[in-house]
């Protein structure tokens, strides 16, 4: 929901970044205010996923210029965990399987790290289990997934639900969903989108990175941006996504180069 008076959460200015010495982001600008949902679309290789990793602070991505301001503070020097504790959350395109680490322990350690950072009481195993069982409802997830190793043997849809469960527990200020919809069947997509909608409120913001307009039928964006060659080359409302769906990315070539 667009409210011109709300706070700017994220302000990305002229961001450039390399992967293995190759420039991928080439001057990206984006401003996200509280309450807003942004969708970033674009072809494979346009830099969408790189942008999400750079926001989260992945060490393999080297920022070569520009800045990322989060509530006005430059976060480029912060570690990934420090960014997470401040409220930045990345839902992974390919959530990792971590054999041997139980999902419940992982969620509890993550949750308590956040509680500690906020100066709040950490929860013991029993209280945490109560909380997590309540949050399972957000993504209609079965409690049996808590006892398994993190994402190990989960189907694609279960992994994505587990990402949204983490988001529900960590209550981020800005959530970046990297192709969370890719490969999901329609039922799983509805559940995941339903979870994201439940968690969105006037104080936080969501950035959806996606290939497909279909997701936007379930989560209505306030802004749609199109990325190409490491930059946002076009921004608009949700009608832009419909136009992309109908006409493909080809129309961009003409408009951008014109």
């Amino acid at each position: 929901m667009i409210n011109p008076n709300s706070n700017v959460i994220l302000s990305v200015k002229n961001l450039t970044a390399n992967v293995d010495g190759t420039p991928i982001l080439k001057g990206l600008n984006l401003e996200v205010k509280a309450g807003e949902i942004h969708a970033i679309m674009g072809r494979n290789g346009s830099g969408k996923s790189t942008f999400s990793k750079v926001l989260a602070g992945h060490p393999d991505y080297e920022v070569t210029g520009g800045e990322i301001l989060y509530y006005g503070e430059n976060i480029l020097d912060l570690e990934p965990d420090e960014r997470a504790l401040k409220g930045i959350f990345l839902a992974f395109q390919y959530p990792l399987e971590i054999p041997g680490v139980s999902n419940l322990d992982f969620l509890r350690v993550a949750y308590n790290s956040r509680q500690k950072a906020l100066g709040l009481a950490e929860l013991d195993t029993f209280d945490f289990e109560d909380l997590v069982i309540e949050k399972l409802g957000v993504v209609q997830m079965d409690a049996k997934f808590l006892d398994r190793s993190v994402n190990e043997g989960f189907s694609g849809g279960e992994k994505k639900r587990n990402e949204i469960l983490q988001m529900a527990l960590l209550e981020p200020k800005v959530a970046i969903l990297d192709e969370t919809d890719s490969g999901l069947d329609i039922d799983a997509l509805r559940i995941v989108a339903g979870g994201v909608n439940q968690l969105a409120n006037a104080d936080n913001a969501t950035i959806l990175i996606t290939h497909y307009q279909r997701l936007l039928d379930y989560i209505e964006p306030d802004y749609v941006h199109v990325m190409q060659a490491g930059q946002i080359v076009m921004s608009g409302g949700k009608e832009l996504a419909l136009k992309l769906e109908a006409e493909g990315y080809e129309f961009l070539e003409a408009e951008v180069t014109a």
Partner: protein
Amino acid sequence: MVVSADLLNAMLQTDAYLSDLLKQSQTQTIRVRSEISGWLQELRQKAAYEVAHQQLPTRRDEEWQFTDLRELKAIAFQNPPAVNVDRETLASFTLPEARHSQVVFVNGVFAPELSDLTGLPPGVFVGNLMGLPLEANYDAIKYIAHQDDATEVFTALNSTGFPDVAVIWAETNVTVEMPIHLLWLTVPTPNPALIQPRGLVIADPGSSLTVIEQYGVAIAACADFTNTPPYLNNAVLEVFTRDNARVNHTRYQRESGSGFHIGKTVVVQDRDSHYTTQSINFGAKLSRHHLNIWQKGPNTETYLNGLTLVDHAQVSDTHSLIALNHSHGITDQLHKCIVDAQAHAIFSGKVFVPQAAQQTQAAQLNRNLLLSPQARVNTQPQLQITADNVKCTHGATVSQIDADELFYLQSRGINAEQARDLLLDAFAAEVLDRIPLPSLRQRLSQCVACRTEELFV
């Protein structure tokens, strides 16, 4: 022609260092009943003959190409004098689940005053050969040193001078629910000690046993990097799982930072028997564990789990051999190593699947985690299959902590140190979780956390 003494020695394949070690071993007093002294004398003579005709291995021997014994050979080990251990020292080794089924040997000698066997059910004997009824002694000696690899130099050396024999024996169809804690305590003495523990585990047909075999130093439960006078623990444990019997054997090696450990576990499996082991190697300056499984009948199951954790300049070598010779055997081996600092882990795992071993299912996996650029691993998974109707897999991995897994955890607000701890704990847990005693699992998992902590200082 004049032949120098050195050359003559070389021609005769004698090894002056080994000869001295043999002399020490041969003068060891052995505690057995007089009725079986004839058997003992014969055993010692035969073993001495084997030792005298061999040399201690060097890196020129294929089986020892990664493990250098020169440091060991620089030390003159001697039979240790008798020593006492007080009960307070013992307390830190006691496992709550096995408080009343604990048998303690000090420098290889049975210490009844430290043992508590009040919780044992009828039908199981735990103690030493001397305490075993005479009739059973005559049976026991049919098992000792009869396995196929008793001529190997360190095992033969042990046979020439073990000071005592630990015996755990479950009678036919007896299920022993209570875990039996076999604790080999070393008390280092000012003169470097030659300690030769010897044990015998027999699970008669249809019986079931859980054994926790622990090698510790009587200064503290954790003596990993405590300097003691050097000593050599040359241990042999022979396990017989008879028809349809089950043995779950956790072997936990925690020598001091100055100790040398050469250990052998020999397992002879009769038909339909199960043998499971968790072999945990955390201690010693240099350790070598031979784990040999001999299949003597069809339809056996064998599960070998191992975890080695080494840092500083520790060397830890595990050589396993699974010799199948009958049909429908199942073997599954998982050996994991965590290697830090300048430490060196070696794994060699042989599985023989000859023509007679049709319908075998054999799996073997060795996974290694390197925590420092100087850490070293040598791994040799080896399957030798001549049977044509079998299902066998093997593999080995060597890796560092996965950067993507680390990033995933960090992206959830878990700091780098805690994330590494979680991943290390998970790596070790795959093996530790198979230990049947919760208290030991927990203790060892704390040890993994404690030992890998210094990474982040």
